[in-house]
Every structure is written in C-alpha cells, then in structure tokens.
C-alpha cells in the first residue's frame, strides 16, 4: 500500500523518477544493492519506505546477484517487485537474469547505463545492458526523465500482460539522466492504481499448496519453453504498441510504440538514435532542415523486442540509414547496427554505423551533424564506409 499522492510537477533527477515510478506503481518488494550511478534510486526508494509513503518490503542484500535472487523469489510468491542496477552490478546479476525471464516473472528493473570495466569508468556506455540481449529480458532506453517515470509505470503494464509475462529493464543514461534534474509531471497514485490494477500472477508459490518451480527439465521440455519465450517476445511488440497508445490516452504523453519518428516523412536519410543522444539529434535535425537538408530521426526505444517491422517500413522510403551506437561488439560494430542490418536484410540502401559517446564521452551537436553529412554522402554513393568512429583520437571518420 502507498499513501495517497496527488498529481504534481517536480524538478527531479532521472534516478528519482525511476524510484518514484516503482513506488507509485505499487512495488511491494524491493531488493537492490547500490552502485554508482544507480545509487540515488536505492536511496530514494529507501526514503519512501522510511517516510511511510510506501509499506513496501525493502530487503538489504549483499550483492546484485542476491538482489535479483530475492526479486525472483518475491515475484514468484506473487508480489510486484522492483530493483535497479548499473554496470558491474548488472554483470554480476547476469546468471539470475536468465532465471527471471525463463520463469516468466515480470520483474521491473531500471538500469542506469554505465561503462563496464576495465578501465573503471562511471559514465554512460551501453556495454552493460546490451550484452544481456539473450537473457530473455525486454530492454528499452529513455530520452528524458519524464520518459523514465512514465516508462517504469508502463513497464509493469507491458511485463504483466498475459501475452508477455517477461521481465523488463527500462534504461537511462548515466548522469545525463540519472543525475540531471528537469521538470517531470507525476500522475496521482489513484490514477496509477486504476491504470495498472493489482498484480495477478498466473501461478505463485504458496505455503498452503507447496510446489517447486524451475528445478529440473530434461530435453523433452526445454525446447518448447524456449519457443514460448520467443513468442512472448514477439507478442510484446503488439502489447507495447497497445500500451503506449493507451498510456497516451490516459496520461497525455505519447511514446509512439517501439520507435518514434521525427521529421521522417519526406526524409532522404534518417539516423536511428537511442537514449539521450536523441534529444541533441532533434535539434540538429531542426537546424539542418532549416538549411534545406532533408534529414530525419528515428528514436529507437526498444532493443528487445526489436522493432523489425517499423524499420522495414522506413527503409522502403529513404536513401540511407545511419545507426548510432554507444557500445561495440568488437569486430562487428555496434549492437544496434548489427540488429538493424539483420532487420533490413534484402534492402539495398547504405546502412552506416556511427560509434560515439563511448565511455561517456560527450556527444555534441557537431558530432551528430557529422553523422548526417556522411549519410547524405552515402546516399549519393560518395562514401562506402560502414563503421565510423566519431570523435576518436587518431581515427578519421
């Protein structure tokens, strides 16, 4: 149970927005271990518990591995759960992520994207969340703090849907969102309670009727389980589209499904971005449009499930596509680039990869402008470069 909270506009960090989202969604069990830059989420949620705003059970754990284990157990017992992590913490959790997904437990875990060592860094890179691609978790990225709050609420709606039942990590950029304050409108607790309803597990651990889950299965069973997980991820696409439409009607903020198109209608080239670089890229698109360049932007929100169908439609009408990545699969390019190429198999337009902001390096307007310049060249057949490192010492883009 949580106290009655009114609708309000706050000036808050992305971390606070994540914690507030979990709290107002009625998370009943929280188990989390603090790690920079996720720390504020744990502190803020602990404050909500301390101040009696929520009576959620806050479990102190000794590691992220234990945090996820505790959430798995609590969710399996029928509780709505919440946790959060970053970087090495997520890496340590890796083993348990498979279990949460395979047991079809709709756990919600904001991940504050931070570089994974070595060397030790605390800034933004997606090499923590993107390597979790095949654990069975849904994964999406936020552009601003409003989206963080809204997305945590929507995460419960999507994850708990009977056609999905998969855990989800809404991601936010280290410091650029986690520690940045900006205005965020929060809905009232009554509105959220009515929107989400009570969590009704399909099956749950019950001391009156004991059972064991996830114990042992021979080859006769596992292949079908994997197929069902695969189909659940496919179903999630439809559910995400429905949920964002419904959320827009209910709360007035429209996130347009798995992707958002920005000035793509008559675009010659489009750049696919993820996370906070999207905001900077919006301003670059506006400036280039004023100079007569027909450029557009696709904000990719979901990495899993991947919006294959949406991108195929866009590829049919543009002359070149760029993909911005903030992580690299060594020897193959950025994870989103690999995914986009796979989704657009059979399309003959140039698809370029731009790597920038790695390790938290600042991505400036001039960097994004460079990406568009190269895309316009690619459309004219003036460059055949594929993987381009932007703003890297000793490397010419």
């Amino acid at each position, binding site marked *: 149970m949580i106290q009655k909270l009114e609708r309000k506009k706050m*000036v808050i960090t992305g971390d606070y927005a994540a914690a507030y989202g979990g709290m107002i969604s009625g998370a009943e069990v929280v188990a989390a271990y603090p790690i920079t830059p996720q720390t504020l989420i744990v502190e803020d949620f602990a404050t909500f518990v301390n101040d009696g705003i929520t009576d959620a059970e806050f479990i102190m754990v000794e590691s992220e591995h234990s945090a996820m284990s505790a959430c798995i157990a609590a969710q399996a017992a029928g509780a709505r759960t919440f946790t959060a992590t970053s970087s090495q913490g997520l890496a340590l959790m890796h083993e348990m992520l498979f279990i949460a997904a395979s047991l079809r437990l709709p756990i919600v875990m904001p991940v504050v994207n931070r570089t994974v060592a070595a060397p030790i860094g605390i800034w933004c890179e997606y090499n923590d969340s993107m390597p979790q691609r095949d654990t069975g978790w849904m994964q999406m990225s936020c552009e601003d703090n409003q989206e963080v709050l809204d997305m945590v609420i929507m995460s419960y709606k999507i994850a708990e849907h009977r056609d999905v039942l998969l855990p989800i990590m809404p991601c936010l950029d280290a*410091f*650029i969102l986690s520690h940045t304050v*900006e205005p965020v409108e929060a809905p009232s607790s009554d509105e959220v309670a009515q929107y989400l309803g009570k969590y009704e597990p399909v099956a749950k651990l019950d001391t009156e009727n004991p059972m064991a889950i996830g114990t042992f299965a021979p080859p006769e069973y596992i292949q079908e389980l994997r197929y069902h997980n695969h189909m659940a991820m496919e179903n999630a696409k439809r559910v995400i589209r429905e949920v964002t439409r419904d959320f827009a009607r209910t709360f007035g903020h429209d996130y347009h499904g798995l992707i958002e198109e920005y000035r793509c209608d008559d675009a010659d080239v489009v750049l696919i971005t993820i996370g906070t670089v999207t905001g*900077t890229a919006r301003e670059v698109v506006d400036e280039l449009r004023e100079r007569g360049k027909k450029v557009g932007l696709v904000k990719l929100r979901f990495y899993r499930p991947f919006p294959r169908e949406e991108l195929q439609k866009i590829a049919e009408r543009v002359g070149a596509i760029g993909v911005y990545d903030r992580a690299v699969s060594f020897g193959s390019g950025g994870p989103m680039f690999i995914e986009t190429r796979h989704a657009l198999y059979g399309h003959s337009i140039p698809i370029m990869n731009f790597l920038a902001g790695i390790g938290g390096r*600042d*991505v*400036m*307007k001039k960097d994004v402008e460079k990406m568009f310049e190269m895309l316009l060249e690619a459309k004219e057949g003036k460059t055949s470069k594929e993987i381009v490192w932007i703003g890297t010492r000793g490397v010419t883009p």
Partner: protein
Amino acid sequence: MLQEIIFYGRGGQGSVTAANLLASAALKSGNRGVQAFPFFGAERRGAPVKAFARISDEEIFVRSQITEPDVVVVLDTGVMDAIDVTQGLKEDGVILLNTNQQADDFSFTQKIATVDATSIALKNNILVGGIPVVNTPMTGALVRIIKGVEIEALKEAMRERFGKQAESNARAAEEAYREVKL
C-alpha cells in the same frame, strides 16, 4: 531565449545544489525548459567541481555539456589558479565571482559581477562543518544577472528543499541579490 550557466566551485561547496535550486526556481518562474546537471569527475571534498544549468522559455532537447556559457559562477576564486573559468564564455557573457575584492582587481575581457558571498554566509550563520555555505547566496546573486528567474521563486525552492535551514539560506540569497555589484 536559451541561457546557459556553468558553476565552478570545490567539492562540498554545493555547486550541484546551486544548479538544482536554480532549475527549480526557473520552473516556478514559468520557464518551460529547465535542466541542471553535474560534471562528475573523481569528485571529493575540496577538489574543483563543475555544474551546468540551462534555462529557456521553450522546451530544451540538447543533452551535451555546455561549452559556450552566457554566465559562469565562481564559488571559490581559488579554482581560477588551476582552471580557466572563462573558457568558452561568450563575449557578452558575465563572470560572477564570490569575492570581497572589486571588479577592477580582476582582468577579464568579459563583464565581471562581484558579491561577497562568504561574508553574507557568515553573517547569516549558514555553515556546514564550520565552513560558510556560499552556494545559496551565489544563486541569489545569479538570478539578478540572468533573465526570467524570480528571487521569490528561488526562496520558495529553498524552502521546499532545506526545511529548518531554509529561512537563513533564503535571507542570504536575498542579501546577495541586493548586494551584487554589476
């Protein structure tokens, strides 16, 4: 109109809090675009730190750090020995210094504003661990220099954030707002 501000200070002086208070006050004053964020290095007490704020009557989308500020706020002029605080500062920009010296004692090409925030903090007895808190008076002086943020909104933001300590901080901010020399 977009206004970009960089705060320079030392770890523990509250540069980040100053930027956050300014953001809250800016929203209360009716600005649509409000953003404040720290530059995080290996932060520790006493080390030079930096925080950023953007204020606009329109929504703000850009997320990169600020490289060409309109105003730089220096909470501790000692950091100027190590850092060029005017780097990137616009030609018609302003440097706001916490100092008991006069503007003429400094040589910058841009406009200089001065306020003795340390004395104001001591007078109002706002201390943390015996060290005068200069971030709140400096923010008070700042709202005099920039456009579109009301001093009353800043005091209100302090009341929301500081509880019992709010009044002395709000008083210090008001004094600095009046006393800053432009």
